[in-house]
């Protein structure tokens, strides 16, 4: 059972805070929470909204239909009223367009409250949004205790502001008495070991826990959240976040950090990632560990800066001139984002190569509740030779030929008698420039061997959900994971026999599970891009042509219903 609430208004009206506070209250009360953001590329004005879906079971997708609309301006009413259920309620800041509003929304309750006036009464116009929090809690039949705690924590640094907010909360709660609509909330109890986290935070946390000591980046929406997460904690963690002069510097700084022996990482969105690709190939040939996160947004070029898409897949896989080993992971949700980032940093060091994490704005900004990550299940992979080993080396070969293509890794200064030389030219075992054909071939093969080893030892097959025998097989990668799960359930409820196969590791492409499951079923690829890139990747690696492709490229994430409808329309009907 779940409820849906949308908060809408313009940039600068405090929607982010309102969303955070409300989500946290619901989370702390024991609900499963799933909150998404839809915002424009501007700082004030325009139209933004946040949807909070919550209930007593795990939630994995946003929903269009809403029980409650909290409209902070007139546009919010106009844009969202049609999505409010017949028995829903629309709350807004009492204005003069009352009449028309009521006419268009005969069945819904409309609750108008002059929160601004109440806030002014309290003595600070900026607490108006908190009045609405009070209203909502009343309608949901929740008590004020948790809310007071959350506000207390949020405003802990200013006693007076905290007091006014709690005042506002109570006023809202009282005023809502007159509203007729009440929602029956399921019984939930706060669970101890849960966290509330979004995709960008999960990646930042994964990086920190993996021991990343240096994050260099240049701001770019929607990737800046990763940088902010780490920057905010750099003093506590004793690590460095440095804003580079541009993205080329960002990735090269990180490569310098890696070469010097510290775990380093960079991140951006498509435009910044584009500028990094020469250095990506350099990491490939020079065999420098590097983790790069690309939080995708709709392109090409500047595109839609604050929106979502999954259209950098083939670019990431094929980025930079020449052939070289590379791993690409498309993270699925905040939980996956955490564990995969942790894994990416370790694999980058194990295989001495670049690993790209593909996230997107949808995942980056979606806040969900999760079981707290279990740190004691995580194993750090140390790719460097030990200091004792280092002492014995008198003629270090950075690119020594070995069975599995992985050469012993040392950092400059680790060996007193040897130096570490890396090179972006084709080179010999010592890292010196070569011109001859034999060494060239041997080095290409050496680098390729690492991928062979990765495929054997570390590549993860996609997750499968569904019955063993299916009539339909949904396929996806990355952040469509959640909506696809719910869509599969909707189809199952209709009596269809549907399986779901979703990939995190996309390059090298794991093909066993796919080849096992794709026969005798109708395969349906669902992607958040215009040209079904993953479908083409599957064909390229297996020759399999997926039967149906469902794509969406309007910059918005999928809802489960949308996928469900598309499948009913394009496939099943």
């Amino acid at each position: 059972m779940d409820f849906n609430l949308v908060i809408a208004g313009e940039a600068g009206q405090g929607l982010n805070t309102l969303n955070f506070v409300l989500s946290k209250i619901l989370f702390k009360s024991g609900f499963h929470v799933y909150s998404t953001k839809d915002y424009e590329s501007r700082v004030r004005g325009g139209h933004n909204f946040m949807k909070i879906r919550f209930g007593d079971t795990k939630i994995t997708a946003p929903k269009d239909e809403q029980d409650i609309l909290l409209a902070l301006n007139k546009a919010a009413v106009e844009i969202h009223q049609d999505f409010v259920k017949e028995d829903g309620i629309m709350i807004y800041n009492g204005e003069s367009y009352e009449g028309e509003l009521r006419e268009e929304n005969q069945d819904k309750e409309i609750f108008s409250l002059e929160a601004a006036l109440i806030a002014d009464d309290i003595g600070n116009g900026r607490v108006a949004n908190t009045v609405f929090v009070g209203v909502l809690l009343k309608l949901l039949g929740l008590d004020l205790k948790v809310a007071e705690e959350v506000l207390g924590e949020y405003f802990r640094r200013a006693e007076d502001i905290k007091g006014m907010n709690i005042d506002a909360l109570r006023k809202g709660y009282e005023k809502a008495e007159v509203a007729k609509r009440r929602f029956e909330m399921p019984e939930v109890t706060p669970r101890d070991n849960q966290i509330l986290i979004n995709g960008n935070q999960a990646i930042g946390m994964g990086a920190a826990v993996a021991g990343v000591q240096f994050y260099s980046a240049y701001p770019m929406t929607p990737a800046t959240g990763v940088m902010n997460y780490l920057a905010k904690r750099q003093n506590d963690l004793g690590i460095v976040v440095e804003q580079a002069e541009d993205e080329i510097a960002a990735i090269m700084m990180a490569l310098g950090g890696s070469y010097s022996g510290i775990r380093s990482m960079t991140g951006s969105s498509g435009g910044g990632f584009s500028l990094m690709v020469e250095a990506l190939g350099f990491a490939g040939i020079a065999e420098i560990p590097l983790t790069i996160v690309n939080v995708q947004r709709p392109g090409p070029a500047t595109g839609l800066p604050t929106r979502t898409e999954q259209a950098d897949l083939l670019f990431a896989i094929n980025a930079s001139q020449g052939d070289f080993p590379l791993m690409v992971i498309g993270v699925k949700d905040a939980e996956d984002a955490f564990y995969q980032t942790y894994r990416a940093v370790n694999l980058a060091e194990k295989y001495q190569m670049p690993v790209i994490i593909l996230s997107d704005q949808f995942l980056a900004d979606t806040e969900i509740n999760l079981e707290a990550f279990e740190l004691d299940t995580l194993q750090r992979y140390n790719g460097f030779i030990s200091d004792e080993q280092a002492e014995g080396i008198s003629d270090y070969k950075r690119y020594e030929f070995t069975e599995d293509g992985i050469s012993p890794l040392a950092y400059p200064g680790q060996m007193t008698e040897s130096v570490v030389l890396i090179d972006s030219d084709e080179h010999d075992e010592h890292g010196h420039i070569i011109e001859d054909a034999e060494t060239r071939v041997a080095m290409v093969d050496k680098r390729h061997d690492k991928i062979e080893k990765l495929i054997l030892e570390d590549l993860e097959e996609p997750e499968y959900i569904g019955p063993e025998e299916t009539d339909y097989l949904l396929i996806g990668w990355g952040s469509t994971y959640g909506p696809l799960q719910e869509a599969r359930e909707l189809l199952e409820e209709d009596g269809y026999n549907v399986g779901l196969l979703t990939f995190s590791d996309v390059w090298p492409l794991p093909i066993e599970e796919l080849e096992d499951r794709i026969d005798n079923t109708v395969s349906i690829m669902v992607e958040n891009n215009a040209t079904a890139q993953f479908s083409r990747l599957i064909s390229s690696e297996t020759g399999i042509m997926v039967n149906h492709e469902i794509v969406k490229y309007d910059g918005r994430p999928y809802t489960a219903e949308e996928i469900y409808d598309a499948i009913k329309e394009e496939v099943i009907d």
Partner: protein
Amino acid sequence: MVNPEIYEANRETAWCPGCGDIPLRQCLAEALAEMDLKPSQVTMFTGIGQAAKMPHYIKVNGFNGLHGRALPPAIGMRIANPEMKVIVESGEGDTYGEGGNHILHNIRRNPDIAHFVHDNQIYGLTKGQASPTTGEEMTTSTQPNGITARPFNPIKFAVAMGATFVARSFVGKKEHLKAMMKAAIKHKGYALIDILQPCVSFNKVNTYQWYMKRVYELGDDYDPTDYDTAIKKADEWGDNIPIGIIYKAEGVPIFRDKHPQIGDRALVKEKKEPTEFQALIDEMK
């Protein structure tokens, strides 16, 4: 002083006979030796070009990266390791051309790096196109009507942007060059030396003779700590070309000082286990 031979600065090179890069390398080896540095205590970052091949021809730790991108990785090392001596070395095309944005912003950072620019006033490796410092007398295969932008003055640029150590030297003056190198490596902060280096294959204007006739050493009466003098001196070029430390400021905070959270810790020696990060999880509860 260690034996300069430990740097193996007599390795065979792909440079042309007579190239100014060759005596430059010799000076570098001697400077390092005189400073008692072992190969493992020095790391050299370069881009791509003739000059940028240096880490192959001298034994120190080497990072032969991408054209124009020698400086940023050196910053990464400055974060990781406060003890290493860090040298950035590359051609003037690499440094002031493709890599212009990095020198611009790294002067602002003032990292503890010695930056040696081999300034042959030409793109050597790619066979003779104009570089930012190519003079107005020159025509090339890609600039048949001569250069299309006025020459870049690296000394003026660095002094004006507040670099804390700015010098010029010439490979034909070996003792001078060595002294400059040592001073730059010792300097705490960003130290630039623009090193005049003839390209015997492609620069038929700025030859050994051309430079030799023009360069003069700044005397004891020149005070490199006086900014006003320095910014004027920086404009001198043509018939008389000053070599020496043009400007020097001591005590300016360096890049690592702006990251107080790492103090003088060598991050490279710290490795944390995942379980040490429980607090990150608890704050999300």
